[in-house]
């Protein structure tokens, strides 16, 4: 293809891909996805104090802050440089990084293949619904961009640079660094390049040690959700739904390939296999965050698939169409769960507005996302649910199944009494209500859209100085 035609197509792909990422962010005056609010609060503290916070930014949470700092530093720096608030910066920071990755993918593939393959890969990255929907909350988006350079250096046999980049990725997000490092190290081990594997792994290990060693004492306090994650047997329905689609897409692309090919292809085949195996662990446990793995899996998939499709004759590009249609189908189905939703539902925003009208001395107990939003949007305080407290004895993980919200009312009663909770802001309708309605509570407010669970506000009655179960008193 001529250079100007390639450039024109790349500009179109980049422009539309950027629009797809920025459009949902621009539609909402709040950042998308609730995890953003955690990062925003950490970045705000860093901006104000110039220091990394010791504890997580929640009242009564008590959990030490051990999330690597580069994303929060980036948000704070971007806020200072632009003059905008951290909250506003966070709306567009990750979508813009994700858009830049479209160009990064083109550059990367062009280095090892031709421009046509590079265009197809950048097209697949730009329009993959999973990669679009993961562009808003987790700094793993930055990890994907940097991993292009890490793998580039791996291919060019500059192992130290590759390892250093993996270390930098780690300082943005632990999860993505370890996941990307797995096929990198495995490839080197399969090639019997033990020395090179050590050179690559050493900087990553060094960065991990530099961050965690001064915080070893913080590891005594594990999240309450870690234990139940091992106990829970599966992730959400949308992960279940997407599994056959993911497996099929990977199988189709592998089937299309004539051979294992060169080192570039071997790496992405290995990557897809490793990411797929990790993703499939969701049948046993969601502890490896399968809801985050979709984008990493799609990321490696686009390189394999672009490689396969570029070698095909025109008629066989039918598979190309199948892929895009499958993606669109997934897009529409995903919408009914998370995709492009604002971080909370309208019901929950109505509930937050209601809590803002309450007397200042009332501090409701709420779930993670609701509490983050109450604190951010109303400048009021709230109590987080029990998931965000320390596990006092981490050896007893498996005993904590009943401590979750999904446990029994007796445990919830202990929690409410411990913090002298007088009000609850809960979302989820009957699923959550069944936990609190056995208590002597008044449900003062409910908001809902047709056929959705309501978001509700409860006040707890205190009789004779202690919480009492409804029906037990006579």
């Amino acid at each position, binding site marked *: *293809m001529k250079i100007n035609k390639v450039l024109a197509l790349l500009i179109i792909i980049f422009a539309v891909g950027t629009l797809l990422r920025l459009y949902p962010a621009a539609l909402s005056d709040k950042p998308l996805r609730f995890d953003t609010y955690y990062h925003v609060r950490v970045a705000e503290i860093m901006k104000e104090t110039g220091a990394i916070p010791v504890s997580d930014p929640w009242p009564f949470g008590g959990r030490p802050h051990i999330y690597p700092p580069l994303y929060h530093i980036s948000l704070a720096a971007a806020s200072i440089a632009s003059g905008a608030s951290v909250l506003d910066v966070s709306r567009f920071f990750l979508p813009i990084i994700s858009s830049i990755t479209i160009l990064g993918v083109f550059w990367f593939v062009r280095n090892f293949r031709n421009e046509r393959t590079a265009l197809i890969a950048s097209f697949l990255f730009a329009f993959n619904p999973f990669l679009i929907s993961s562009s808003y909350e987790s700094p793993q988006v930055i990890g994907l961009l940097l991993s292009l350079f890490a793998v580039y250096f791996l291919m060019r046999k500059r192992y130290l640079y590759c390892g250093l980049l993996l270390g930098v990725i780690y300082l943005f997000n632990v999860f993505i660094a370890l996941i990307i490092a797995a096929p990198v190290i495995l490839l080197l081990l399969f090639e019997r390049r033990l020395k090179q594997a050590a050179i690559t792994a050493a900087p990553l290990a060094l960065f991990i040690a530099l961050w965690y060693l001064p915080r070893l004492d913080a590891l005594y306090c594990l999240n309450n959700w870690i234990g139940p994650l091992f106990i829970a047997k599966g992730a959400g329905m949308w992960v279940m739904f997407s599994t056959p689609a993911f497996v099929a897409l990977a199988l189709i692309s592998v089937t299309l390939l004539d051979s294992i090919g060169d080192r570039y292809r071997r790496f992405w085949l290995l990557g897809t296999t490793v990411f797929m195996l990790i993703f499939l662990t969701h049948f046993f446990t969601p502890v490896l965050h399968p809801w985050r793995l979709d984008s990493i899996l799609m990321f490696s998939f686009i390189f394999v698939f672009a490689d396969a499709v570029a*070698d095909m004759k*025109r008629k066989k590009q039918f598979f190309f169409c199948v892929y*895009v249609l499958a993606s669109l189908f997934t897009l529409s189905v995903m919408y009914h769960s998370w995709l492009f939703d604002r971080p909370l539902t309208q019901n929950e925003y109505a509930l937050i507005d209601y809590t803002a009208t309450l007397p200042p001395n009332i501090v409701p107990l709420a779930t993670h996302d609701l509490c983050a939003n109450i604190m951010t949007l109303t400048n009021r305080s709230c109590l987080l649910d029990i998931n965000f407290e320390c596990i006092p004895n981490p050896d007893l993980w498996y005993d904590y199944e009943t401590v979750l919200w999904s446990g029994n009312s007796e445990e919830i009663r202990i929690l409410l009494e411990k913090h002298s909770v007088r009000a609850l802001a809960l979302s989820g309708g009957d699923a959550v209500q069944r936990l609190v309605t056995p208590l*002597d509570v008044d449900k003062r*407010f*409910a908001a809902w859209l047709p056929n959705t669970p309501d978001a509700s506000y409860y006040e707890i009655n205190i009789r004779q100085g202690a919480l009492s179960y409804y029906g037990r008193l006579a």
Partner: protein
Amino acid sequence: MKKRDRLDFFDVIVLLSCLAGIVIALTLTVMPHGPLTQVTLLDYPTTMSHDQPLNFSLNITGQSHYSIDIFEDNEKLFTVLSNGSTILHFGFSNITKGLHRFTAQVNDLVAHDYHSVFFTVDVV
């Protein structure tokens, strides 16, 4: 240059139709999905004498086609059809002594959906 390396008319059509499909899907996702209904329990007693009438009020916004079922514990007392008001007052008497939970279940007659607010009264 090999023929397979060329992006031709077919490719452009596929690309454009994919773009159009995604834009349509995105547009559909941001369309509104029905009215937001809010029910607020306004006035109610927490303790009352059994020889007093029980009075309480509800504020319902966001929908006009609804009915309200009033329950004492799990027993339905009566049903009220919407009269266009957002503030509704309720009152009844002859309540036995003890702890009672009164529930107002707002039924959406269009969406065939319902949600409740409730409160507990200690009748002495």
